[in-house]
């Protein structure tokens, strides 16, 4: 049933995904064409100013795509699990855990797609295919100024980990929104207020877990053990250490998403309340 659930998720959501990413790529192409035109001698200064404004709008739009990645799937969750369409979703002969797993996989695919499309859009808009290698060059130059020399592959590794961290962060926030919404809808009154309270509650729990983990890793024996493991893997290379640290953070983020999905599934299984 998981395969069918995932298929159903895609059938229901592809229009939304196409609208976000199709719109972004189209806008990137427009920015590229306008940029090329503005370099031409035949255009006047008004046109060049207009292109500058459009470039500014594009900058906001590229941030907007990231925000839309959280808001649109959350809106879809709300519609298909708690509004009228919920009457169909919750009467499908599928376990709640399967419904939630299918949704989580679809969200993950969407985030992966965004991680491909978003940089691609930026490449198109700037008209430079080597924009990311330039970014690595700049980082290497910065490290060199600080008096260090690092292997290029390691810098790329850190950047990839940061990139993954950002997109996993989006997924994590999305599932925190989903779980909070499910929490708020367990109640008969004040659902919105309780959803907001739920979100704040989950955020506090998340902070507390991080603080707790931080305290645990400060225990002398444990700290030494961790240091020696990292030392064995990375040696004294700080960039390699950064890769490992971000890798651990990313695994933590995945665990967080899974835990939030489990909470959401539990609430829907035990306390579904489609009044």
């Amino acid at each position, binding site marked *: 049933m998981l395969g069918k659930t995932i298929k159903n998720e895609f*059938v229901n959501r592809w229009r939304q995904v196409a609208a976000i990413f199709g719109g972004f790529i189209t806008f990137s192409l427009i920015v590229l064409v306008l940029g090329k035109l503005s370099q031409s001698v035949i255009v006047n200064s008004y046109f060049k100013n207009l292109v500058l404004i459009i470039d500014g709008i594009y900058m906001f739009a590229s941030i907007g795509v990231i925000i839309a990645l959280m808001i649109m799937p959350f809106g879809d969750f709300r519609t298909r699990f708690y509004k*009228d369409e919920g*009457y169909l979703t*919750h009467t499908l002969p599928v376990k709640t855990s399967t419904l939630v797993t299918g949704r989580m996989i679809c969200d993950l695919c969407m985030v992966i797609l965004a991680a491909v499309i978003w940089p691609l859009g930026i490449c198109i808009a700037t008209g430079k295919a080597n924009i990311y290698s330039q970014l690595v060059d700049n980082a290497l130059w910065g490290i060199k100024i600080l008096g260090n020399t690092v292997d290029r592959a390691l810098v790329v590794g850190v950047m990839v980990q940061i990139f993954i961290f950002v997109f996993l962060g989006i997924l994590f926030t999305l599932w925190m929104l989903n779980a909070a919404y499910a929490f708020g809808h367990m109640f008969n009154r004040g659902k919105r207020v309780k959803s907001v309270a739920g979100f704040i509650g989950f955020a506090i729990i998340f902070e507390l877990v991080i603080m707790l983990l931080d305290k645990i890793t400060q225990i002398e024996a444990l700290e030494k053990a961790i240091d020696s493991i990292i030392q064995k893997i990375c040696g004294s290379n700080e960039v390699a250490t950064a890769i490992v640290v971000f890798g651990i953070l990313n695994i933590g983020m995945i665990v967080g998403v899974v835990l939030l999905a489990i909470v959401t599934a539990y609430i829907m299984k035990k306390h579904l309340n489609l009044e």
Partner: protein
Amino acid sequence: MSNIVQISGVRKGYGISKTVFEELNLTLESGKIIGLLGPNGSGKTTLIKMLAGLLRNDAGEILIDGMEIGAQTKAIVSYLPERTYFNEYLTVKNLIGMFEDFYEDFDSERAYKMMELLDINPNMVLKKLSKGNKEKVQLIMVMSRRAKLYLLDEPIAGVDPAARDYIMQTILTNYDENSTILISTHLIQDIENILDEVIFVKDGRIVCQENADELRQKKGQSIDEIFREVFRC
């Protein structure tokens, strides 16, 4: 005759202030068309939603075909809510594909035939259909299943008499004689002739559960008249 639904000691409330069912006990036999009759707010929809798995009971036990509410019961229950519940951006064909995927008892051929009779293009997006046609598509989808239990919540409320006839005809021509239909309504006159059994719900209590013909004979009145008498304000 075996029991398709067994409800024992069910309590359901909305918050602390409103209790819909204090202690509900009810048994429904297979192979019957049962009218769940009661005024607005009597608990009909709440009962149907609990059977469909959309609401959790606070206490007690609900069994459908001997199973607790879950994925297995949803596979044998076909539910028609009182609202349209499809993603409006899907085509009718998408919808049929989805029902085919999830419900083993779904007869897509029958669904396509009924759509054709209504002149509904399967490639049409639901959003482009009229409200009446959307409701009909929903009914077709629900009745194209060979379910053991059909839960129809107010299927004829708010529709014109011609549409009512279509709905009743669709229900009668498509349901399997071994299955059970539970129809909730307060428009009794329109459905009383097809009912085998009636259940009167008043303030969350079952005040009457009887064979429709026997009740008519006993009281010498139609079900509609009896209903008016029982629920007179």
